[in-house]
């Protein structure tokens, strides 16, 4: 039976008939013989897995490299220690504008701003964040804070090991967010 009608022919139900190949009836000596053959095929399949090698990643020792756009733990940034940024070197980029807190859908960012004084200049702007806290147990890692920030002061980092024993320990303070993470997560090259 052919499933394709000859060119120009009218459609008829005949052409919709398809051939069905059914498996042989199970049971009996023939079934046992086929089962034996399939068993050998299965043995070959599992042995091929041994030859193929192990695909486990030994997690605490080996980590999965994340992609560059992976949204992990947040980072707060300072100006680089270079000469061409007009005396801003080492100052915090965050000016305490609270736009990140406004953008945050999980409402997990708390910013309390304070004025910079000539004696204590913390940030490059007029004000700085006296308190900057992110509640990591609420954060959904959407990255809206990063988008909302006009000074690129907050970005999403690559660290994903954030578990802790207490909820209160998951409230990350400004000092924690400014500090470099202890062991950085491995990063994949673009396109890898």
């Amino acid at each position, binding site marked *: 039976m052919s499933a394709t009608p000859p060119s120009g022919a009218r459609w008829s139900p005949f052409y919709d008939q398809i051939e069905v190949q059914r498996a042989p009836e199970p049971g009996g000596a023939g079934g*046992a013989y086929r089962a034996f053959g399939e068993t050998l095929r299965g043995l070959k399949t599992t042995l091929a897995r041994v030859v193929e090698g*192990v695909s*486990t990643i030994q997690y605490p020792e080996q980590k999965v490299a994340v992609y560059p756009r992976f949204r992990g733990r947040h980072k707060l940034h300072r100006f680089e220690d270079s000469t061409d940024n007009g005396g801003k070197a080492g100052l915090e980029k965050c000016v305490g504008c609270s736009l990140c807190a406004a953008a945050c859908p999980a409402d997990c960012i708390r910013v309390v701003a304070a004025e910079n004084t000539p004696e204590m200049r913390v940030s490059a702007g007029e004000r700085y964040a006296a308190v900057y806290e992110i509640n990591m147990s609420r954060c959904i890692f959407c990255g809206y804070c990063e988008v909302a920030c006009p000074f690129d002061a907050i970005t999403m980092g690559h660290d994903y090991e954030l578990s802790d024993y207490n909820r209160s320990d998951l409230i990350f303070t400004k000092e924690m967010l400014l500090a470099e993470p202890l062991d950085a997560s491995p990063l994949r090259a673009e396109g890898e």
Partner: protein
Amino acid sequence: MTPLAIVDYYEAWWIQIIKAVLIFAIGLQIVPVVLLAERKLLGRFQGRYGPNRVGPYGVIQPLADIVKLLGKEQSRPNTSIGPLYILAPVISIMTAVATFAIIPFGDAPHIFGTRVGLYGIDVSIGPLYIFALSAIAFYGLMLGGWASGSKYSFLGAMRAAAQLISYEVSQGLALVGVLITAGTLSLTQIVHAQEGMWYIVPQLAGFLIFMVAAFAETNRAPFDLAEADAELVGGYNTEYGGGRFASYYFAEYLNVVVVSGVATTLFLGGWLIPGWHSEPAWLDPFVVLFKMTLFIIFFIWIRATLPRLRYDQLMSFGWKILLPLATLNTLITAIVVVAVHG
């Protein structure tokens, strides 16, 4: 017929005690190794490492498992029947160890001037002894499941009973071919009878039937219906924990070792190395252990490959296919032996 095979040397009683202790100790050492090998190899077959955290390469894992099990509280359900519940794992482990006694690890070489048989006992009823003990071993599963007073245990025990009885027939018949060809029931003499050719060649059908039945007899995948964890929680040992569960577990793996030993002895020529008839006697046990290892790896390989059979498939396979094939094999062997030897 005397219960022990007639041998041309005498063993002092203290030699026999040393041998018994030694064999039991070696048997005890093999089981944790098999346990670890199973978990490591299953891992490899599934593309993972298996246990590798306890000790270097995870070698202390079975020890840790056993220590954990033995350190647990021995609890038993209110509905259980105390004495039987306690006795059942003992029966299981006792029969497994007792079967290990007749596996020959070598001939009877001279050790320090006296001839010592490298086996526990050389019984003149070899395979019958094995089947007698495996028939008793089934009481271990049956009583354990029944005395637990739990429906899952009971179902597992019923399945175990049906399965073991069905497959023991085929297993026995598969061996009859070997026995007819060898003309003896003593395991050491069966090995000697294979000096010309291992019985796996003339008795290939018997070997395959024996292996299939051995999987069923040891309750291993794909015939592990007695403890089908997906449907029966744990089968006959559902209600067992701690040391008693460890006994069941130990017996199960020792049974695998024993069946491997029996298959080695009856079909793979025991301690014989083909083409080398003057090998030193100290090599014999290692040859046997090597061949047993091959079988154990095969057991694990099969477990990694095949899914569990359905209950009706198990029964119809055992009675409708395996048993007629085993009978046919016996019949043909008998005819051929009579035709050749008159």
